[in-house]
């Protein structure tokens, strides 16, 4: 009797483990399918022409996505310029003043900001930048993406700096180095791997964002380097072309997806190498 029950429990144990392993690996299936699909369909579009040419009019063959690639890069740079310094500075304050009331509320604000839907940020950028400027622009798109990058950079900085042992800071101060210099010249460099991780993750995240760009960067059929003009971007191009009926455009969209995914995955890879190489062990 007891033996029968024991056998049942052993089977349940084995079965459970099998189910856990099965479901875990089933989760990989979508990822593999998506990557496979993108590469299979997108690789055909990839050519030198694809990277340097502008899109052709509706229904015509050929053309490329150069304006979307340049636009995406511009947007990410505009987004990073204000948000990286601001994010690091705020992260320093949060990690250095743990008991302060401002830290509590700021930390809360960071969490809320991180969870805010990207479409809401898009509306905010529209109200704050597009309307006063009187037009759509790369600048407005960059601001929207920058607001989205901010919380990730703050958190990464805060968490990294919190992990650095206090003894490092104390040693520096004991040697007579002023506080601000201690932070800037000793602590920050020690945490550079974590902070870089935050920057890279947030860049990868916003590079693929479409919603906030719908009514800020707006899109451009031509190449544009002027920050006060609308600019195209990879996600926007994919969105427009994917929902169209033209097989030619679908082909381009797969190719653009390929480029975008490779970019995001490369950032992830770089991030891992950064962690490994630059991480300061304590």
């Amino acid at each position, binding site marked *: 009797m007891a033996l029968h029950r024991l056998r049942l429990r052993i089977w349940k144990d084995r079965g459970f483990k099998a189910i856990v392993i099965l479901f875990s690996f089933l989760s990989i299936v979508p990822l593999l399918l998506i990557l496979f699909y993108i590469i299979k369909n997108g690789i055909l579009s990839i050519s030198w022409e694809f990277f340097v040419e502008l899109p*052709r*009019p*509706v*229904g015509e063959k050929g053309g490329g996505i150069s304006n979307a690639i340049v636009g995406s890069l511009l947007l990410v740079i505009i987004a990073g310029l204000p948000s990286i310094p601001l994010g690091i500075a705020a992260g320093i304050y949060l990690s250095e003043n743990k008991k302060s009331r401002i830290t509590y509320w700021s930390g809360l604000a960071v969490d809320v900001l991180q969870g805010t839907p990207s479409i809401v940020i898009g509306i905010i950028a529209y109200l704050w930048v*597009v*309307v006063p400027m*009187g*037009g*759509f622009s790369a600048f407005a798109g960059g601001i929207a993406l920058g607001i989205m990058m901010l919380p990730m950079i703050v958190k990464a900085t805060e968490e990294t700096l919190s992990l650095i042992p206090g003894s490092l800071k104390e040693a520096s101060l004991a040697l007579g180095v002023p506080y601000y210099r201690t932070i800037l010249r000793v602590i920050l460099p020690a945490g550079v791997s974590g902070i870089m991780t935050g920057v890279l993750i947030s860049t990868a995240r916003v590079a693929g964002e479409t919603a906030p760009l719908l009514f800020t960067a*707006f*899109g*451009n*059929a*031509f190449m*544009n380097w*002027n920050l006060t*003009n*609308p600019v195209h971007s990879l996600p926007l191009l994919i969105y*427009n072309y994917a*929902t*169209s*009926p*033209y097989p030619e455009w679908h082909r381009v969209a797969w190719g653009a997806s390929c480029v975008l995914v490779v970019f995001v995955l490369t950032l992830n890879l770089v991030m891992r190498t950064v962690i490994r190489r630059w991480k300061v062990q304590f």
Partner: protein
Amino acid sequence: MDLLGAGATFPYPLYSKMFYVYWQKTGVKINYQAIGSGGGQRQLLNMTVDFGGTDAFMSAEALEKAPAKILHIPTCLGAIVLTYTLPGNPRLRLTPSLISDIFLGKVTKWNDKRITDINPNENLPDMNIMVVHRSDGSGTTFVFTDYLSKVSKEWEKKVGRGKAVNWPVGLGSKGNTGVAGFIKYSPGAIGYVELGYAVLNRMPVAAIQNKAMRFINPGATSTSIAARVFLPDDTRISITNTKAIEGYPIAGFTWILVFEEQAYRGGPEKKAKALAKALWWMTHEGQKYAEPLHYAPLSPEAIIKTEKIIKSITYNGHSCLE
């Protein structure tokens, strides 16, 4: 020199060709974003774009409320077709009451007696009709619902006309591209798009019974015939449900909207001049690109009225065209 426009998806294939050619010819980059006629009007009113594109002309009230006088410049004519995906690609005929009942959700199957009665030679399957409409604010929707309101009292009462309406049935897609894109891959789907979108994708279109009780195929000719009406000076007119015997019943102009006085944004005069020149080119040399893309070019009478309007675009009072 960069110009920015936004609006209707209806003429987008034509505009994208025209602006590409114009850029190669003159170096002027005209960036047109097809976000729908509603978007075109709104962004012009917000002064975030240099011109708007719309197939729904602005109402008198809307023009009253505008911050300054707005001009409608017609660029071409187009036909709105009913396109569908069915096995065997049948060429269907549809009547006005049938179309409105399909979109009201009263006719739900492809082999409904009313459809098979007027299409006796086609083998219609026992499939559900999947209605597809626009999810964004669309001039194409406006012209289509304007037509339906004219031919169906029930439609006019229940739904009415507008760039975005409360559709009784169906699902939505963004832009003419989205609707065509969805129908193309969905067996049993039917929706309304500009002719070019259906033809470029080799999708079948229905012949529609017009007011003269003839079944008319959409095309540049039948569209032009429908447009043979007296055009008011500001060119704001609806040409749906035409009385012309060979006219296609669901056709319309598409316009470019600009402010009459171009100094409103403090922009440079040369921009205003470039805009006027581009508009002149679009309505003259540019017209040759219309028919190959399945639009109808402007009639000579329409062009005369259009020229007057373009000449009335001013910068600080004097005309933008030398």
